[in-house]
């Protein structure tokens, strides 16, 4: 059944009421869903096969190792809590990198933006008077963390918009500068003697899941995860529903066309990197506000860089990013669980395989899917 032919027979008078196009985006078609879900699944299966071979090479049984991995993560409340905790930070850094990618910018600086957000939140927490309800403190912490990460993100943004400095170079370099600065401030100025962390927040710490559900006792999971989901939702709305988002994606897809459409490309650039930094900065709340209630050197080392993988595997879509964050958090926590059978590093290798499998096989599977559908149509 060919499209052109069927359309040419459509009447050209008033639009037919049968298919109001405005109703379409609410429910994605089956084809869209298939294309979104099937390819990553195939990629994961591929990664699992490679994982099997790896495990076999260590002389272990793949089923035993995978069983242990699942048992230690989704199999019990503590493990699951740890997965949720790790995923929370990854959602924030993944969203940060994903937003940048949508604007055609590669933010490699989530690592230091995350730390800066955590640090400013902790500083504000020391300055607050004791005894203020958490709900009143929350907006203050949100602003503090977003500001800390946002400032670090704004620097490459403004340098790029103003002087054309490449954001990859600037964000990489800023990672060293900012982390060194924070380490200096923590260890020289603000640490509690004999530790590498600052004093505890005076007010407004958020409860852990363990405080509410006994089963999660001991795990780091806390209610910041709700903030992460809220942030994912807000970013989706911003990207796909607002004019700013429309313009931001236009810049990322085709700068020439965006310029033609009157979009201030420089403005989008610095705004995107600033918001990206702010999102990463908010990730610092997971540790500072939700878990330990102080800033500690290296509290989430690697979570910024892993955010790049999360954004790539999640295809810079908020829903994809949340799922990818859960996957990488599972692998990361699972690495500890399987340590008895295979080296923990095997799971790092597995993460790399996931990234490679997704980035190479997703376009391939999608093409296959389309050609299968075409021949089914005929």
């Amino acid at each position: 059944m060919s499209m052109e032919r069927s359309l040419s027979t459509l009447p050209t008078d008033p639009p037919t009421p049968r298919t109001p196009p405005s109703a379409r985006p609410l429910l994605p078609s089956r084809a869209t869903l298939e294309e979104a879900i099937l390819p990553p699944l195939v990629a994961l299966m591929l990664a699992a096969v490679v994982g099997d071979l790896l495990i076999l090479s260590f002389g272990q049984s793949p089923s035993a190792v995978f069983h242990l991995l699942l048992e230690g993560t989704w199999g019990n409340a503590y493990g699951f809590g740890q997965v949720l905790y790790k995923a929370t930070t990854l959602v924030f850094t993944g969203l940060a990198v994903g937003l940048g990618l949508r604007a055609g910018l590669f933010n490699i600086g989530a690592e230091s933006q995350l730390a800066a957000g955590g640090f400013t939140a902790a500083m504000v927490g020391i300055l607050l008077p004791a005894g203020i309800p958490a709900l009143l403190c929350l907006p203050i912490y949100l602003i503090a963390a977003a500001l800390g990460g946002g400032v670090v993100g704004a620097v490459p943004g403004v340098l790029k918009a103003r002087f054309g400095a490449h954001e990859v170079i600037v964000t990489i370099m800023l990672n060293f500068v900012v982390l060194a600065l924070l380490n200096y401030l923590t260890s020289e100025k603000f640490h509690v003697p004999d530790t590498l962390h600052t004093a505890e927040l005076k007010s407004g710490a958020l409860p852990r899941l363990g405080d509410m559900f006994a089963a999660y006792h001991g795990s780091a999971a806390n209610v910041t995860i709700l903030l992460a989901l809220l942030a994912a939702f807000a970013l989706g709305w911003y990207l796909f529903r607002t004019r700013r988002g429309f313009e931001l994606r236009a810049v990322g897809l085709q700068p020439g066309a965006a310029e033609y459409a009157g979009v201030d490309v420089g403005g989008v650039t610095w705004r995107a990197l600033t918001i990206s930094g702010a999102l990463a900065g908010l990730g610092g709340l997971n540790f500072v506000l939700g878990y330990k209630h102080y800033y500690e050197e290296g509290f989430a080392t690697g979570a910024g860089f892993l955010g790049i993988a999360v954004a790539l595997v999640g295809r810079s879509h908020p829903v994809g990013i949340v799922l990818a964050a859960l996957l990488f958090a599972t692998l990361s926590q699972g690495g500890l669980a399987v340590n008895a059978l295979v080296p923990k590093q095997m799971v790092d290798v597995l993460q790399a395989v996931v990234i490679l499998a997704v980035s190479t096989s997703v376009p391939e599977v999608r093409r296959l899917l389309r050609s299968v559908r075409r021949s089914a149509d005929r």
Partner: protein
Amino acid sequence: MTTTPAIELTGIDKAFGAVQANRGASLEVVSGEIHALVGENGAGKSTLMRVLAGMYAPDAGTMLVNGRDVTGWSTAQSIAGGVGMVHQHFMLVPTLTVAENVVLGSEITNGLSLDRAAAERAVRELSERTGLHVPPAALVSHLSVGEAQRVEILKTLYRGARILILDEPTAVLSPPEVTELWNVLRTLRADGGTVVLITHKLDEVIDVSDSITVMRQGSTVERMSSRGVTPQAIARAMVGRDVALALDAEYVPTSSADPSASPILRVQDLTVLDARGAVAVQDVSFDIAPGEILGIAGVEGNGQTELVEALAGLRAARGSAMLDGRDLLSLDVRRRGDAGLSHIPEDRHERGLLLEYSVAENLILGQQHRFTRGVSMDREAIQRNARALIQRYDIRPADAALQARALSGGNQQKIVIAREMSRDFKVLLAAQPTRGVDVGAIEFIHSRLREARDAGAGILLVSADLAEVLALADRIAVMYGGRFVAVMSRADATPAVLGGFMTGAERAA
């Protein structure tokens, strides 16, 4: 005993997603002829030729080259089989010399290093035999567009092509360069070569080809001999009905222009630099009256692009440009639009469209600040706008949610035209408004432009197609080397007069 045809394609099907580009298409080309493949944009000509050149595998059908079944061969196999394709967009390395580009991929080596002298010798010899004259040691970045095209053809011939496919080769050439290309093709034919020429321009078809295949909506509809055929007959076969052709369209004088009215656009001493910092437009001054079309003729690359982009706000410029008394140069792109400037950009893939965005979204591009409710986009209004414009401009398929990428070139251009001409404007910059658009759509776009003029808009029309400028413009300026070398009324303009100015052979005092 009949001779085996050089090319015999039968029942070729090829689809891209929802778009069926070829549907049982066939083509038979006799060895040693120049064969023209014509059809509206989106008729599937380029697709069919890419299938022949091995770039796409057909979904169905058989392909014979010199009697051999080559269905679904690869590009490497097609090159080895003597088939070569020269694309609309050149595929040359600008930092290499002509000779280096020609031998690229089949280098003559001298141990480990490239034997440059031998390469240049080989290229010079080929160049003399075919009449494709280009200095072999020149850098490709220093060549004119016409010369670069000769390099493309040389490259194809160097790889042993005996069947040469040319995709819209004259789009970028000046009239004398076109004549020269025809001579080269005739030389190749005399040498026993076979040529397939994809083109839109019907006078060319009759000029140079021996036989013609017409395609429509992915299928072959007619095969005819070029002898005695009229442009009208070809056009009828292409569109399936009678159409007014641009090349014989009567110039319709303006009905509303008032020469005494103050100009709606006044440009004075405009100087614009190109991407490399060289002067691309130098001290250009002109006025456009309300209800007037000023056409700019000229070979591409003589500053037209930079002139239009500077007026649109996409390129910095010195001088002044006043739209109805407002200084354009101090405004950004969006404010120029709000001030009454509309712009059909010359490159719809680079600027005019966001190919990943839906048709509906593309129909508001540049107007997005008018389609908001608070900070969010007003999706209702966007869909309403899309439904209205799709219907009014007959954009096909009539699906607002489809990605712009999925539409044919002609329908993509209709999106741009619909968007830019449906809003309020006083001045329209129309750069190559019918490039790569089929005959039927050209007629449609031309009448929209005339309507806008008659409604009192000032239009700056830039076109590489002389026939288009002659059919539309009330006054004609010729651009050469970044300057206006001549400005004349439509009554004084003939192709011969304009051609002289276009090549720089003549300058007005």
